[in-house]
């Protein structure tokens, strides 16, 4: 009997923790984009997307960094002056846990900054960069 108990506890732990990992809303969002993109994401490409000055968007917002500052760990500022919570997951655990919200801000900000919608790969790269930050 005892031996089963010893085996059962770690086994349960593995099952529970992997279930928790798989169902994390953030990884579900990344998986959602991965399925659409059909390829792996790169934090380095996400960093590029974040830091680059883009053409094609609205002149007021040429880059993500216009509002979010050069580091995702910083508190940003909207053009009107309202603070924006840091983008980096290490500084803001609430980030990227609500797909509807994530989609809303990608739609708006990609159009503002790039003048077009972002592709699933760009979204996945961006999130991967922010999750690693």
């Amino acid at each position, binding site marked *: 009997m005892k031996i089963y108990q010893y085996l059962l506890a770690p086994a349960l732990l593995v099952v529970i923790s992997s279930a928790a990992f798989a169902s994390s809303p953030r990884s579900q969002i990344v998986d959602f984009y991965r399925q659409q993109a059909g390829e792996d994401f790169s934090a380095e490409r996400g960093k590029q997307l974040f830091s680059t000055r883009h053409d094609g968007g609205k002149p007021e917002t040429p880059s993500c960094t216009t509002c979010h500052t050069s580091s995702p760990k910083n508190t940003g500022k909207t053009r*009107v002056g309202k603070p924006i919570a840091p983008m980096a997951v290490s500084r803001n655990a609430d980030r990227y846990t609500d797909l509807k919200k994530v989609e809303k801000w990608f739609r708006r900000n990609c159009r503002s900054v790039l003048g077009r919608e972002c592709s699933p790969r760009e979204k996945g790269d961006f999130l991967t960069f922010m999750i690693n930050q």
Partner: protein
Amino acid sequence: MKKLLLAAAIIALTPLPAMADRTSYKPSNNPTFKKECGACHMAFQPGFLPANSWELIMDDLGNHFGEDASLDDETTSLIKQYLVKKAARRVSGEPPLRITRLRWFVREHNHEVSSRAKKKAGTMSNCTSCHRGAERGYFDDD
């Protein structure tokens, strides 16, 4: 005791003198409006603009003063309905789009805002930078 606390709370929360003042506006109490519009800027009091101004603004959120602020259709129409209902009376002719260009706004701010205060605020749309009670409808603390 409970009644006493309630009475104290009511007195504390009633902005009696301010309501009579021409520079106070009823604060917005619509949670969707506050959440969505308040994400980027103060949820401006609907009474600041005429109903037909809000209609124009809400019909063009994709080009919102230099940014895409689009929302899904349901949320957009919900906020639009709320704003139009609480707005100032419709105006004839071209409705104003910027609160900061309204005649009374310009008159109130023209001479008394220091350049330091302007720099701190960043833009004239950043009410709360100087008016700390702006979101609750107080603008007399300048």
